[in-house]
């Protein structure tokens, strides 16, 4: 049975079990939309270079409950770091029992608990905001299965000292598995938090993740968000990170992709209040047949906002890359400063990148810039290093390390930065300098 067929069966099963209420009505509407739009094909301009139909025609199991993993499994994915919370998703379901979150700055609930609690208004206000921007079937499909997701509130005036880690574990020991994690994070006034998402496929079969995480950031709050993908060619991923900057606040988002199968990352930064500031960084460094597609939307709705976007790619083997960066500057958004840059190095003859900036500006007093490059390593720099006795392989590695360093520097959590640097140096086959 293909995934698209399985989805129909499983929806009814889940919906019957999860009841109605707030989430029920979101599910129903979303499922209708999903049935109307279906899985996006390459005929959809937004999906021109990323094909999913090959995957959705395959057989994938859909689990709506989690199998609790062993301690070893958990330790396998955990970063050795101090943390404010360690939150585990297993097969797309948030598992509270194995998560750790005793921190008085945080409220952690499952989404269906939150929808029925004193935090209900937050859920009403901010859940499924991404659907305003993501009209395709994948976003709707995730919403149609919203039940056992995660809700995190960072309380007013609290500075969360250590990062919150979200680990996504998919168990593909017995079959291919399709999972749909869903999270909502609200950062209240004057609060500060760092959030890290990591993924791990435990098994030899294929995993296909369709994730949506929505983050609402309120007045004077600060969010750092990191998404790290380093699975294997059997792990496919479609994910949307939707950051809604409700009040004047600061956000800093970094997406790092080191390995995977077919990957599509959507990131939306919605600058809803005047004087908002947002930064988007990305590094993709892939090999083999990995396909990585980074789509971003920066929407400037109000005056005096600043946004900066910088993505870099190192493409090896037969890998393919896509960068699509959209910036909207609405009529009200005078004095917007919006910058965007995408730089790529192809280190194999068979790798390719499609990069496309898109600016839609409706205000007349703005500063926007964009640029993209696709090239090879600088021959002059390479010769300079070799002329000092550094072998060709090592010289290339040094240059690539330097190329990646621009983005790695944006990782403000030392443990994570060192972890990533080690991974990258292993890939480049150089000792850490």
């Amino acid at each position, binding site marked *: 049975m293909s995934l698209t067929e399985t989805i129909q069966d499983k929806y009814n099963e889940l919906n019957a079990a999860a009841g109605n209420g707030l989430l029920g009505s979101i599910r129903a509407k979303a499922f209708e939309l999903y049935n109307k739009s279906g899985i996006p094909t390459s005929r959809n301009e937004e999906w021109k270079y990323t094909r999913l139909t090959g995957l959705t025609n395959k057989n994938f199991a859909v689990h709506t409950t989690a199998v609790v993993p062993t301690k070893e499994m958990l330790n396998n994915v955990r970063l050795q770091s101090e943390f404010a919370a360690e939150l585990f998703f297993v097969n797309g379901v948030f598992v509270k029992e194995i998560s750790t979150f005793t921190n008085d700055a945080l409220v952690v609930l499952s989404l269906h608990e939150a929808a029925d609690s004193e935090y209900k208004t937050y859920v009403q206000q901010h859940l499924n905001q991404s659907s305003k921007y993501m009209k395709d079937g994948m976003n709707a499909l995730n919403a149609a299965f919203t039940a056992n997701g995660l809700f995190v509130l960072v309380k007013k005036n609290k500075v969360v000292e250590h990062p919150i880690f979200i680990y996504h574990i998919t168990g593909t020991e017995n079959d291919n598995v399709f999972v749909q994690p869903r999270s909502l994070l609200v950062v209240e006034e004057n609060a500060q938090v760092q959030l890290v998402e990591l993924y791990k496929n435990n098994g030899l079969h294929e995993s296909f993740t369709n994730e949506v995480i929505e983050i609402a950031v309120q007045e004077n709050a600060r969010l750092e968000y990191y998404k790290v993908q380093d699975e294997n060619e059997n792990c496919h991923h479609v994910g949307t990170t939707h950051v809604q900057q409700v009040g004047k606040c600061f956000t800093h988002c970094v997406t790092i992709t080191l390995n995977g199968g077919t990957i599509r990352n959507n990131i939306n930064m919605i600058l809803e209040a005047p004087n908002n500031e947002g930064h988007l960084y990305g590094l993709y460094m892939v090999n083999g047949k990995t396909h990585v597609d980074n789509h971003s939307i920066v929407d400037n709705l109000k005056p005096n906002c600043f946004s900066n976007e910088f993505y870099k790619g190192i493409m090896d083997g037969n890998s393919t890359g896509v960068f699509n960066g959209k910036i909207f500057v609405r009529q009200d958004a005078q004095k917007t400063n919006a910058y965007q840059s995408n730089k790529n190095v192809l280190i194999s003859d068979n790798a390719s990148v499609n990069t496309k900036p898109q600016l839609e500006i409706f205000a007349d007093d703005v500063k926007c810039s964009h640029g993209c490059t696709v090239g090879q390593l*600088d021959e*002059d*720099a390479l*010769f*300079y*290093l*070799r*002329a*000092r*006795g*550094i*072998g*060709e392989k*090592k*010289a290339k590695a*040094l*240059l690539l*390390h*330097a*190329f990646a*360093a*621009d983005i790695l520097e944006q990782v403000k959590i030392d443990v994570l930065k060192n972890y990533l640097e080690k991974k990258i140096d292993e890939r480049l086959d150089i000792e850490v*300098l």
Partner: protein
Amino acid sequence: MLTINNLHAQIEDKKILNGIDLQINAGEVHAIMGPNGSGKSTLASVLAGRSDYEVTDGTVEFDGVDLLEMSPEERAREGLFLAFQYPIEIPGVSTTNFIKTAVNEARKHRGQDALDAVSFLKLMKERMKLVKIDQSLLSRSLNEGFSGGEKKRNEIFQMAMLEPKLAILDETDSGLDIDALRIVADGVNALRSKDNATLVITHYQRLLDYIVPDFVHVLYKGRIVKSGGKELALELEEKGYDFIKQTIAEGV
């Protein structure tokens, strides 16, 4: 140490070197002078192993080995050093780490152990004095945002660290003011010994007041057309390159 025999080289279809013969022995300083476009920098690039140039004829022996068969990194490890006319800026690669890597690659090639951090720092401090280069410069990215003079000083510093058998200075004087020129020249002179040799490529005689050559060669249209002692440089300075061009024209 270096024996160049009938060397011909071209880039794409343009012939630049048309039969160069040159013998450099240990302990000697040679200067190559010549007008723009005579092939001076091409000679330096060919010796260092730049692949843009195709050697079409001739041989180069370096300490009895065929230099042209070696990759750029092998040449460097064997003790050939090119001080670049335009040192490259490489953001993200720290100058210190770069030099440490280079020094240890050469040591590995000679069968020596890598320098530990302490010995490396000690060596670095000692050699920094030679070229009056500041520590703060070395903790920055390689040549990034360095002034022209700082870049050249960094080249000579690298040379001091790597202790080459043969150093080729490609227009090291270009873009230097008189004080910087003196510092660079003092560094080069301090490194001179009976076991190494220096090939100075320059446009002007000025540098040769500070780095005094044993031999001066004039390169013109890809060939050495005149050789002599240090007085040849002075003669050139006085009469200009037209005098050479004339001599050649009359000879034909």
